[in-house]
């Protein structure tokens, strides 16, 4: 175990220097980056906001099941299936039928139809039904159908969330899908997430609807910005989809902040027709079910642009314009988890983390030197090399360093010497019985090998499981712990062994004591 061929020695030191050199990239000045690699600081160290949002697809499912009513009725009629008691519930449709077999045959026909439009492509039904009584069935979205609805809503939401966050202009936001219903957002450096939360909390569904004079059928009772109760027609003249742009403005006449908007061609046509036909009536601008303002139509607006005023502050006008530009979210979003770290706490954490790392490191080094003298120096050299390699690997991977991650590095320092301790103790034992010192070292290394491997693999297993199940900062801990084990094995079994062999092979037998 003590013989190293020249080529092996070369490979060992090449790997070491190659990896360790990356550790120094973290310290170079910003403007002289040759290789642009660096360890990222986690939100808990640099400060910032972490938000986990969840879509609520209840209203969307309700909408989608209603869209199925007409096609379903048509399909039943075409196939001559009589039905009665057709009812629309929140998330399902119920109906009574007599010919159940025929219904079942139709439903599970494995052919594309209006109810199950993508059976050919996906081999899955969008809808499912269950029998509630002898002749009554309940039609709901199948698991697959729900997944499709959630998935498309989530994809669309992520797009809109990204637009809104980009528009606010935070630096390097991370926006990721998490599971079937969630969006993870990381906003480094953000001190106060309240504005972003407020912006993401609005679906921003904008409608233009006429105000009706009487509370006739087909109107909603809404309250205007001046606390006026208005009956607003359910018919939507035009919606936010027809907007191409929206900008905050200051009205020249009264210095009031407003939002001006531009419509696409279709929107301009619809808007023009509605305003031409209804001069003198009031037009309600409804955002998420609340009236922003309800001005009187003075003249036909055919230019395809307009203005919304509604006692805004300039900030409100800016935010409204941003929301309109980014488009409406398909479903409301809810913040289900939020963590914000102030930048000064992050700095404090870096300071205390680094201090404890340095002190822990010094304590371990002193102890090892006290315990093993010259071999302690070898172990300590290996430990320093280990630390450099660990930081080097983290840099190569551009891993995220968190406060628990720093704890992981310190723990690695404490546990890394274990491999060398195991080996040295083994050699001590061998020296008691072996006459040849070189032979004692040789068998010591060989015998300790299995133990060192077994012992480290168990910790590695724990680190891998932690990485798979942990979140955020804890993941950072798992990364440093896991990589630390691998660099520990490398430095103990290659670097320290090579140094030991140099020492042993170049010293006279009797001088060696461990």
């Amino acid at each position, binding site marked *: 175990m003590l013989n190293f061929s020249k080529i092996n020695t070369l490979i060992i030191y090449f790997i070491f220097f190659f990896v360790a050199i990356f550790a120094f990239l973290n310290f170079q000045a910003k403007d002289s980056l040759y290789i642009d690699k660096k360890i990222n600081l986690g939100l*808990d160290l640099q400060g910032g906001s972490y938000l986990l949002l*969840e879509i609520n697809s209840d209203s969307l499912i309700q909408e989608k099941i209603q869209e199925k009513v007409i096609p379903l009725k048509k399909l039943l009629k075409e196939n001559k299936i009589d039905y009665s008691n057709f009812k629309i519930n929140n998330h399902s449709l119920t109906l009574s039928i007599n010919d159940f077999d025929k219904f079942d045959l139709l439903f599970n026909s494995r052919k594309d139809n209006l109810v199950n439009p993508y059976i050919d492509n996906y081999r899955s039904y969008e809808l499912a039904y269950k029998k509630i009584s002898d002749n009554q069935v309940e039609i709901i979205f199948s698991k697959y159908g729900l997944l499709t609805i959630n998935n498309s809503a989530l994809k669309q939401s992520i797009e809109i969330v990204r637009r809104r966050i980009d528009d606010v202009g935070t630096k390097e936001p991370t926006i990721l899908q998490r599971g079937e219903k969630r969006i993870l957002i990381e906003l480094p450096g953000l001190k106060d997430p309240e504005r972003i*939360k407020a912006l993401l909390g609005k679906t921003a569904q904008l409608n233009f609807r006429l105000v009706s004079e009487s509370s006739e059928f087909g109107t909603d009772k809404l309250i205007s910005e001046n606390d006026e109760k208005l009956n607003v027609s359910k018919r939507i003249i035009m919606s936010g989809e027809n907007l191409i742009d929206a900008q905050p403005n200051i009205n020249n006449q009264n210095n009031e902040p407003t939002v001006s908007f531009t419509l696409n061609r279709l929107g301009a046509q619809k808007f023009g027709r509605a305003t031409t036909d209804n001069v003198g009536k009031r037009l309600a601008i409804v955002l998420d079910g609340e009236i922003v303002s309800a001005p009187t139509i003075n003249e036909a607006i055919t230019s395809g642009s307009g203005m919304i005023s509604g006692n805004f502050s300039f900030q409100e006008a800016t935010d409204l314009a941003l929301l309109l530009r980014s488009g409406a979210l398909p479903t409301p979003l809810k*913040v*289900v*988890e*939020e*963590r*914000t*770290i*102030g930048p*000064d*706490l992050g700095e404090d*954490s870096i300071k*205390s*983390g680094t*201090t*404890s790392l340095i*002190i*822990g490191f010094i*304590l*371990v080094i002193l*102890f*090892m030197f006290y*315990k093993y003298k010259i071999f302690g120096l070898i172990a300590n050299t290996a430990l320093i090399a280990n630390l450099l390699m660990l930081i080097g690997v983290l840099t190569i991977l551009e891993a995220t360093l968190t*406060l*628990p991650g*720093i*704890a992981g590095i*310190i*723990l690695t320092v*404490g*546990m890394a*010497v*274990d491999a060398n*301790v*195991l080996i040295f*103790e083994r050699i*001590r034992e061998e020296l008691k019985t072996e006459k040849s010192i070189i032979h004692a070292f040789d068998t010591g290394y060989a*015998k300790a090998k*299995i*133990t060192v491997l*077994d*012992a480290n*693999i*168990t*910790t*590695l*297993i*724990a*680190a891998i*499981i*932690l990485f798979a*199940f*942990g979140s955020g*900062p*804890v993941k950072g*801990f*798992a990364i440093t*712990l896991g990589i630390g084990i691998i660099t520990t094995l490398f430095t103990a079994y290659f670097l320290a062994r090579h140094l030991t062999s140099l020492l042993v092979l170049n010293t006279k037998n009797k001088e060696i004591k461990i």
Partner: protein
Amino acid sequence: MDNRFNFSSKFRLANIFSLILFATSLLFILFKGLNYGIDFKGGTLIELRANNISVSEIRSELKNMNLGDVNVKKFGQDGDFLIKVEQKTNDGNKIIPQIKKNFSDNLNTQINFRRVENVGPKVSSELLQSGIIAISLSLAAMLFYIWIRFEWQFSIGSIIALFHDVVITLGIFSILSLEINLSIIAAVLTIVGYSMNDTVVIYDRIRENLNKYNRLNISEIADLSINDTLARTIITSITTLLALLSIFILGGEILRGFSFAMILGVVIGTYSSIFVASPMLKLFKVTYKTLEKEEEKIVS
């Protein structure tokens, strides 16, 4: 190390001690319960820094807001406070701006909100669930790994030792009402890794000595092996504890719970690999034949 200890004579005493500790821990965990932080219980946490302000002022300010169960305490250095608000409604994240506004309106001092966290009820129960799964899975993985590398007796013995460590660590957290959060789960998993590491070193030696000394019984073999590896066990525990103490004392308030759990775990884990994992092999009547049988199986 020439002065050898007769560990096996103390096994019985140690096992009684372990059983008492284990049972007490289990009773505390079951009846007193664990003090879950907002990660696992849901709720809101605010860490703030302000001068010339007392805990009671903050408390009365929060009382006026009618938030339900509120906990205010000093945190680390002077002027740092930690506020915890239990989950009352489903919409926890609305109370953060309320609290912020109320504080800056009514308390006559500059307030620096250093950390704000809010975990909803659904997420917290998922986090708890995945924490439990992670710990169980790590135990199962260890069981499997040792079963492959050694024999089933070793595998069961080491898992009982691990179980012992995890339960007692959590038990002490329950007795002292210390908070269990995500980083404590990380600590427990690391303890599992560390304790296993310690156990494997001793088991490895037991296996080796079983092959070497056919005539010795398992108690003698265990004694011999524990003594053989004792120096290593102590030195590694010391270096690990040195590193952990450094985190505990200098690493700041956030890492304190984590490093405390780890310190407990290292001490308990070192103890258990000697006094729990090794006697288990005696209980399972392991002899050198146990190893031979295994080898025969592989050959045939």
